[in-house]
């Protein structure tokens, strides 16, 4: 994708086209638009969808966060702080006024824990001291992508023994910001991996049904209808409950994605089948057949390029459903289990009344889910509108 806009009609350097009128009809002689492939046309059309453009950046940002989770999270997500249970969110300040004037450096105000002797409720009070922070400072050590040891973080306290809580802390004093960032990794990747499964099943089965028709079509259609008629949540619950809790996080993660995508492929199969059915009758596909193109060439060279954009749009709209499904399962305690961290797992900890009263910030992962799902939906809408750049 390039940022080049479709150039306006430029006079020089065009081959002269045969004149079909007297002076010729107004031809699309702009060279840029004339040689623009479908992806470039789609990009031009997509760019006009403002909300989708914003969403594109949001989604991009979210995945970057997930990829660089270890670096961006200030602390180890599992590290607890005995003196930080239900610590409320703090604001990072930049303008530091001291006796010697002021300077620009990030800091938060230090707090002291108080316990109300009657209600036993924990409150935090400013001590007046400052906890200075630094960018790219050293903190908890971690293994970047499991490959090499690192201890630099994006923003950490200068003194590694101190802590700060941008998103607050949970019951055990674990930093919610770090946990939400780590949670993005599992929650977002489950959407992608799940959609890959769906895509594989959906495109293969839908494509076969649409292209071959006849008995294949009937069988695939009936299977799709059967799957769609299953009550989704009970089936998920039953399947998820059947997974032994002793399995490792990785195995469990894999099976949860499988379960979640079990339903997702049907919609894709239908979309692909419908497209194949209508494309099969298009003149240019018949022309390819009469050009003696092989079956494979007709499917992969002539039909699939017309479908990819639609498939991408459908996939984008399917990802948020996967993310929501994982969140729901984990929230009910049947999906991923602690110590795995996903947004659903984090929300599970906000299940009881105590959390609502003592730490409403425990719902921040829920906000992350909402933002992600909305961004994907807007992005999908934009892609769907741009998917067929040839319709006017």
């Amino acid at each position, binding site marked *: 994708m390039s940022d080049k806009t*479709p150039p*306006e*009609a430029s006079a020089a350097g065009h*081959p*002269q*086209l*045969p004149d*079909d*009128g*007297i002076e010729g*009809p*107004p*031809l*699309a*002689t702009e060279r840029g*638009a*004339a*040689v*623009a*492939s*479908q992806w470039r*046309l789609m990009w031009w059309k997509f760019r*006009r969808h403002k909300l989708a453009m914003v969403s594109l950046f949001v989604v991009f940002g979210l995945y970057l966060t997930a990829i660089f989770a270890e670096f961006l999270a200030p602390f180890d997500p599992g590290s607890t702080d005995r003196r930080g249970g239900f610590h409320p969110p703090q604001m990072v300040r930049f303008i530091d006024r001291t006796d010697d004037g002021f300077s620009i450096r990030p800091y938060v105000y230090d707090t002291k824990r108080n316990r109300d002797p009657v209600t036993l409720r924990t409150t935090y009070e400013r001590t007046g001291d400052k906890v200075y922070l630094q960018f790219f400072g050293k903190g908890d050590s971690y293994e970047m992508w499991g490959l090499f040891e690192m201890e630099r973080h994006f923003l950490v306290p200068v003194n590694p023994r101190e802590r700060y809580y941008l998103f607050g802390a949970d019951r055990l004093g674990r930093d919610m910001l770090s946990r939400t960032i780590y949670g993005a990794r599992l929650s977002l990747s489950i959407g992608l991996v799940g959609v890959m499964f769906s895509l594989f099943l959906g495109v293969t089965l839908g494509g076969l049904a649409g292209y071959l028709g006849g008995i294949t079509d009937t069988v695939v259609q009936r299977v799709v209808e059967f799957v769609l008629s299953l009550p989704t949540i009970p089936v998920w619950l039953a399947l998820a409950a059947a997974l032994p809790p002793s399995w490792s996080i990785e195995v469990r993660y894999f099976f949860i994605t499988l379960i979640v995508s079990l339903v997702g492929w049907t919609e894709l199969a239908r979309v692909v089948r419908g497209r194949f059915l209508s494309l099969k009758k*298009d*003149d*240019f596909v*018949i*022309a*390819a*057949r*009469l*050009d*003696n*193109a*092989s079956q494979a*060439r007709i499917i992969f060279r*002539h039909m699939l*390029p*017309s479908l990819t954009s639609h498939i991408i749009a459908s996939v984008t709209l399917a990802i948020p459903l996967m993310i929501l499904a994982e969140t729901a399962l984990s929230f009910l305690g049947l999906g991923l289990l602690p110590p795995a961290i996903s947004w659903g797992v984090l929300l599970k900890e906000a299940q009881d009344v105590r959390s609502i009263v003592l730490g409403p910030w425990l719902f921040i992962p829920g906000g992350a889910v909402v933002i992600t799902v909305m961004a994907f939906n807007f992005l999908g809408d934009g892609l769907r509108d741009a998917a067929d750049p*040839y319709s006017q």
Partner: protein
Amino acid sequence: MSDPRLPRATVNAALPEDVILDVRNLRTYFPTRTHVVKAVDDVSFQLRRGRTTCIVGESGSGKSITARSILQILDAPGQIEGGVIRLRSTGRDAQGESIVDLTSLHPRSRAIRAIRGRDIAMIFQEPMSSLSPVHTIGDQIIETIRLHEPVSKSEARTRAIELLRRCEIRDPDIAVDRYTFEFSGGMRQRAMIAMALSCNPQVLIADEPTTALDVTTQAEILDLMRELQTSYGMAIMFITHDMGVVAEIADDVVVMRHGKVVETGEVNALFADPQHAYTKKLLDSVIKLERRADIKPAEAAILGADTPTILAVRDLSVTFPGQARFLRKPAPGVHAVRQVSLELKKGESLGIVGESGSGKTTLGRAIASVRAPTEGNVLYRGKDGVEVDLADLNGPALQAYRRRVRMIFQDPYGSLNPRMTVGQIVAEPLRNNNVATGAALRARVADLLEQVGLPAEVMERYPHAFSGGQRQRVGIARAIALEPEVVICDEATSALDVSIRSQVLDLLIELQKKLDLSFIFIAHDIGVVRYFCDRVAVMRLGEVVELGPASQVCSAPEHPYTKALLSAVPHPDPTARSMHLRTRYSEEAS
């Protein structure tokens, strides 16, 4: 002329008594992201009581946008930028006339809504999409009447039935309760006209009302409109691209091109002595199609020559199976082609003419091996002299047949893969048949493009950058890429504007000479067939009713259906209006 709006005083200036609608300096623009499309640019004309004004122009000339501007039903982002549209409006209670400037009314105002349908009614090209499929014809007419006049439902119904009767719909009291889909195309257009006439409009705008119809149906509709005009005395604005229709129905003609009026005049004068070069060119290209192409050798020379038969169709039938029904026998199938036999001689062009539903396209597709025939044979004897039966072919033999017998499609937009460049599209048959690769392939594609009159540089462009005629040239290049012997043209020129039509036909004739091709030319347009073909087969309901030399079939037909078909074709000569003298064909007559 540069002043967009005339002062108010001029608007109120008197119009000549018989002028009902006066359009002056109308400009309608469509602003796009990069530039402004001037769809209608400084257009002026008048509509007079009891007269038909034809707006004629090719696609993109702005004729429909002009009509839509008058009613203010423009699609976004279209906007009237300037000009005055004055309408002599009879008030709701018919007390005195007033002159209204339609451009001064808001597109969603009550005033313009009162004018739409009551003063100015419009009929559209596609009767199926402009009538509601979920309401009966009667309901739709009654609604229109009651929107504009305070009458009771039963009164409105009586009037609706009367209107349907006036529009020559059989059994109007039954038809009033029918749904749109129960009507044929011609009947739908009649119902549409009945609806338009329901409030006695002063102006009827007809936007290509007969373009989607067969010629015989078109003749009926034109008849009806002429008759209704005499009895209602309204002004008709008739938009069309067909000079024949203009000659048949117009009193005055407005010729448009690229959003501008190039010429206005009385019909006889304009046809006899066109002033503008474009009008001349338009008329010439229509008149050119009235007879055999000059660049072709004489018909007798081709028919008399002792040439071998290259393709023979024997008793070919194609039946579309009926819908499977639950626990019952499947519905009876449709016999699209029945027992057709044809022969195509080497170097000859055989025309297949018929109206929609005659099976001509199905026949062409069966010969092109797109669809297998239900019965009968297609026998092909190529250069090598071996006769093959299409039905027996498969695998490499079928591929060989498809290399020799090629097809050009009707729709220049749908037949080219929008996601491949023109070079890739033309290279596709060469690549698939291992004719050439690499630099040789590129050179061959360039050569093919040049043969169809496109510069080789366009290879890297995508089809969306080409006009209809240019796309059709690409389609032709693809068809001749494998040096075929037979080319089947399925309505290859019917989607093109008339001035481009003859250019494409001439290109085909030249290629025929150069490459020694034989054509099967399928068309609904007699003119094109007469221009291009040596022999003609006339098809009706899947059967060939007449087959003979083009000159004979097109001027002295034997079969009554062919006679009816020919006499319904409008000719571009307003002094010899012949449509009302046409012969009608009915089943009993055969």
